[in-house]
């Protein structure tokens, strides 16, 4: 009887140890994947984020009836301040947009008014494009607002990519979940899918013309597609960009809107 009981105890101990070993291994693997994912996300941030930047861009909006291109110059400092002046077409020239710590103002010379954009309006499209004010405003680093997991590897546009799944760890974010195809050598996303918490695909972005700018890789063309509306998407081209410049403080003030 005693020997039977001893054998049973030994067997039980062995099973528990095996289960603990498997669990620990799985947890370690998941942690390792998360750790690797986090380091990939940091490398992406090193490419895309900077202390400040000055860029000239053009945005081509492909509507159902016609396409039009808007050019703009923007000054950005960290993730709290940015100022954009629209240069063309003539109907938009002189329109300025200022972001200061989560607040957004637009000035237009046509009406000579400064209007604050807030609330649900931030989710509206900017100039009929596939980008919302929220998209334009959110300059936070991905590693600060998303938890990440590596879900696979693939090839995209002849480049080896790591597939990441990002889940938001903050509440004030436009996209709760993202799927990202990241160039495994340059650490730059080549494709992004943005999802709502419900799982609905909201937007898709494709990064093209990846170039070496200063000491980083940067996509000079991003094609955005709002999946909830018809149309052929919006092409956002960065024509010139320079990082870590001296930007006068007065640029980021409401006085510079007029």
């Amino acid at each position, binding site marked *: 009887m005693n020997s039977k009981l001893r054998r049973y105890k030994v067997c039980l101990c062995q099973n528990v140890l095996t289960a603990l070993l498997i669990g620990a291994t799985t947890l370690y693997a998941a942690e390792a994947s998360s750790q690797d994912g986090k380091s990939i996300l940091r490398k992406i941030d090193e490419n895309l984020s900077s202390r400040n930047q000055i860029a000239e861009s053009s945005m081509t*909006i492909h*509507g*159902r*009836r*016609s396409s*039009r291109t*808007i050019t703009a110059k923007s000054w950005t400092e960290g993730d709290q301040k940015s100022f954009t002046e629209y240069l063309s077409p003539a*109907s*938009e020239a002189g*329109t300025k947009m200022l972001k200061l710590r989560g607040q957004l103002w*637009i000035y*237009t010379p*046509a*009406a*000579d*008014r*400064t*209007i*604050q954009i*807030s609330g649900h*309006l931030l989710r509206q*499209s900017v*100039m*009929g*494009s596939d980008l919302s004010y929220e998209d334009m405003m959110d300059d936070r680093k991905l590693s600060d607002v998303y938890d990440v997991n590596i879900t696979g590897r693939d090839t995209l546009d002849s480049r080896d990519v790591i597939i990441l799944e990002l889940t938001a760890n903050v509440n004030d974010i436009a996209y709760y979940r993202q799927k990202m195809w990241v160039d495994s050598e340059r650490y730059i996303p080549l494709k992004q899918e943005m999802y709502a918490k419900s799982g609905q695909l909201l937007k898709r972005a494709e990064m093209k013309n990846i170039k070496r700018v200063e000491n980083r890789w940067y996509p000079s063309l991003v094609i955005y597609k709002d999946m909830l509306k018809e149309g052929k998407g919006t092409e956002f081209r960065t024509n010139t960009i320079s990082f870590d410049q001296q930007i006068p403080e007065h640029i980021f003030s409401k006085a510079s809107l007029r």
Partner: protein
Amino acid sequence: MKRFLLKGVIKDKGRSLLPIIVVATGTMLTVVMYSWLTGIMGDSIRMNANFNTGELKVMTKAYAADADQFPNDLAILDADNLLTELKAFEPGVDWVKRIRFGALADFPDANGETRGQAPAIGWAVDLFSKESKEAGRFNLQESIVKGGMPANAGEVLISDELARRFDIKPGDTFTLFGSTMDGGFAFYNLKVSGTLLFGATGLDRGAIVMDIADAQKAFGMEGACSEILGFLPDTYFNSEKALAIKTRFNSQPTLAQNEDEFAPVMITLRDQAGMAEMVDYTDFVSGLMVFIFVSAMAIVLWNGGLLGALRRYSEFGIRLAMGESKGHIYKTLLFEALLIGTIGSIFGTVIGYSIVLYINIHGVDMSGMMQNSTMVMPSVMRTAITPTTYYIGFIPGIFSVILGNALAGIGIYKRETARLFNELEV
């Protein structure tokens, strides 16, 4: 014989006066009730048509697919040309251009910066042309609470609720912020000429009514419009006529095979969200009410016929005793009922029609009862005058009297000649 019976009905007031009064009263009530119910429901449909749906509406096919979102990027581009074509196509219809928009009304402080904002739903209509009936369709003059109608370009009417919320008075300015037709920023400064109270919460929350030329400038829609609305000359929506025009327009060879998503397409009031149900419900309710009322009147008049036949029990006995056939007596009874029903119905319809006409012209102000109404309904109720008004009263007026007499007269056939003299002695 017929003339003899007519003389009898006219001269023997004991036989005809009370039945004629009863028939006339029933007929009058039927006419008034029918016209009142039809009028109230018809006015609600008319108000929706005036504000939103028209009786006919022309849009681009692409716009029509998402019309409730006012997708002005899909609007009609060469609106004046299409308007001319529509006027030639169906001259009897009043065709008007409209721009519908959703935008943000931004009220500035003394420094020109945002003091307050509210979403607004806008109607841009022809306010300044002499021949335009649009101000009347929106009942603007009567709905103004403060200030007056826009007199110049750049002047608009805003809902009184919006004005009170942001302490806006006539003469103050605000900026309309939205999207131009091609998706750009639309900023347009406007001056408030007056404030409006339509009496319907949905409209009064944030309505803006402006001239279409201002909206075209504001939203970069020069030469364009969201939709062209058509109003038939009939007082109340004529579903068959609207459907016939729509079918004829959409089946034109240039349009029927046109796969361009920006080609114009015509729809009727019934095709628009919730309106078919509202039209059908109106028909059902007015039909049901008329049926209930007519049935009730028929019972009253049938009873009158029964009483009349019973009162003439002795008369029929004498006539039978004198050798008149039962069938002949029954026929004369029915013919007299027809005469009484007709005379009563004519009197009742004339009196009822006079009341209906008076209410149709002057209306009944119900605004005091509708202060918290959320429906798009007019505050002044009117009766409707339709072809049915002229004959609806004859249904209970004639048929119920004949039916009453026919049933009561069956008793004639049960009389036995052998017992007639005994009955007459009594």
